[in-house]
């Protein structure tokens, strides 16, 4: 029972990180119908920025804030400079550009920061919390991870639902033509979408790096799990992305904990879940009803 609780809580903690990556992919997919393969690479770069800031200032929070800001700037910059020219071109062009960007970012990280593993500090203790004498299997830091993704997600959801800027983003995502004819500057809205995605990715990078170490490829696995979570959720649905992230986090945590030599099986389990979900619901668990094809 205690074991189960431990696996569950640790699954939630990792699941929230996958959820953040999934959400960043969904934001871009909804706006531009493009899968951003460089999302993990961008998060890796901003985490390097964070580690340099932490190193120079001695403040975790300075690094945290700078990483998020850098994520937003990097996202917007990429959209304006290299993604915008691929729009209204065959979809493959955008895909190739983001893969190229990933290669470029990982290469640059190696040049400027070196290839060695670097440890990333945490904001809170990573010592397991206990109730009475029973270890819970989570630390204060795990709680911070889950809470910060939750706060970011809720803030986004509220902004999308209740603000004028949120309505502009949804309108532009659902029907760019109508949005433009109504006076929404869709190009600008898409840039904002990339900035938000960059910010979420940066958040995921900073949060996960204490557990994975930081190196030029360190976000590759996280990106793949985040992508899996997004596909499970339906790629179009922010709620689906978060749910997909949590489901995947839990499933991988149980698999790693209960299966014999489970840690090695984790990627296979992730693939298995993806295949099963796509067989049962090819558009993902939370795909919107196909209202537009009426």
């Amino acid at each position, binding site marked *: 029972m205690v074991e189960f609780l431990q696996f569950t809580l640790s699954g939630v903690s990792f699941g929230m990180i996958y959820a953040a990556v999934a959400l960043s992919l969904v934001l871009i997919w909804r706006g531009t119908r493009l899968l951003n393969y460089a999302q993990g690479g961008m998060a890796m770069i901003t985490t390097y920025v964070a580690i340099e800031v932490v190193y120079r200032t001695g403040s975790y929070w300075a690094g945290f804030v700078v990483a998020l800001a850098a994520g937003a700037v990097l996202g917007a910059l990429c959209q304006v400079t290299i993604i915008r020219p691929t729009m209204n071109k065959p979809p493959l062009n955008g895909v190739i550009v983001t893969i190229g960007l990933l290669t470029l970012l990982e290469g640059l990280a190696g040049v400027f920061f070196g290839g060695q593993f670097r440890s990333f500090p945490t904001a809170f203790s990573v010592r397991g919390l206990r109730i009475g004498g029973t270890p819970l299997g989570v630390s204060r830091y795990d709680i911070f991870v889950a809470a910060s993704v939750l706060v970011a997600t809720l803030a986004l959801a509220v902004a999308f639902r209740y603000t*004028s800027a949120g*309505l502009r983003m949804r309108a532009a995502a*659902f029907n760019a033509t*109508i*949005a*433009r004819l109504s*006076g*929404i500057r869709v190009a600008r809205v898409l840039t904002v979408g990339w900035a938000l995605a960059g910010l979420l990715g940066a958040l995921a990078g900073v949060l996960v790096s204490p557990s994975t170490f930081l190196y030029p490829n360190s976000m590759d696995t996280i990106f793949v799990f985040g992508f899996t979570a997004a596909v499970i959720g339906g790629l179009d649905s922010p709620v689906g992305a978060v749910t997909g992230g949590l489901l995947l986090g839990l499933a991988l945590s149980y698999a790693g904990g209960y299966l014999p030599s489970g840690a090695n099986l984790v990627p296979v389990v992730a693939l298995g879940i993806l295949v099963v979900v796509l067989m049962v619901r090819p558009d993902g668990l939370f795909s919107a009803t196909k*209202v*537009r094809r009426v």
Partner: protein
Amino acid sequence: MSSVTGPEGPAGPATPALAVEELVAGYGGVIALDRVSISAGTAAITAVLGANGAGKTTLLRAVSGMIRPRRGRVRLDGTDLTGRNPEQMVRAGIAHVPEGQAVIPELTVEENLRVGMMSWPRGRSRADRSAALDEAFERFPPLAARRRKLAAALSGGERQMLVIARALLAQPRVLLLDEPSLGLAPRVMAQVMDLVVRLSREHGITIILVEQNARGALAIADHGVVLNLGRVVAAADAATLAADVALRHHYLGF
């Protein structure tokens, strides 16, 4: 060939609100509009008629900036707007209602209407916005009853109502309507045509009405323009066009 004035003749009122001059537009190697000129009088209804592929929709798309004209001019009250993008055109006063009852089905009725106010300057107050929204709901009671429902749940007629209401919230001087009666039941079609008449007579909006239903469009229009293969083949009073049997048979199919 016909008694109607040709494209070179006097084609409309002396002080047009919207003037399209020698417009050339196309897609890739195809010329869809070939030196099309149209003048639409203030608060008048100008019907643009013609068969499939005549260039009617392309004309609206070129006027609203959805496609960039290769040559020619688009003027609103004398101001040259040629080459502006759709976001700028709607701010300048030209609202385009595309064909196909183009609501955003994933948004609620109220959200669809709010999208219509996105062209407003940033400075306008919240009170102004909610007053405009209330006015829209007053004018279209069926929409008020469904304001929190997804637009996907609306009938065809209600959708058409919603897209027109959305375009009106941009407070346009000129309204470009692409086949507003397409796919609607005859009774609903008549309601939409009534609405178009009221918009021009009571609200002073200049209307460019693209229709395949030429008979219905000429019945309410002041002026008509007939396109064929991207060229203007006739432009005259609506009554004159409707009375021209040869032209009707040849281009309008009734």
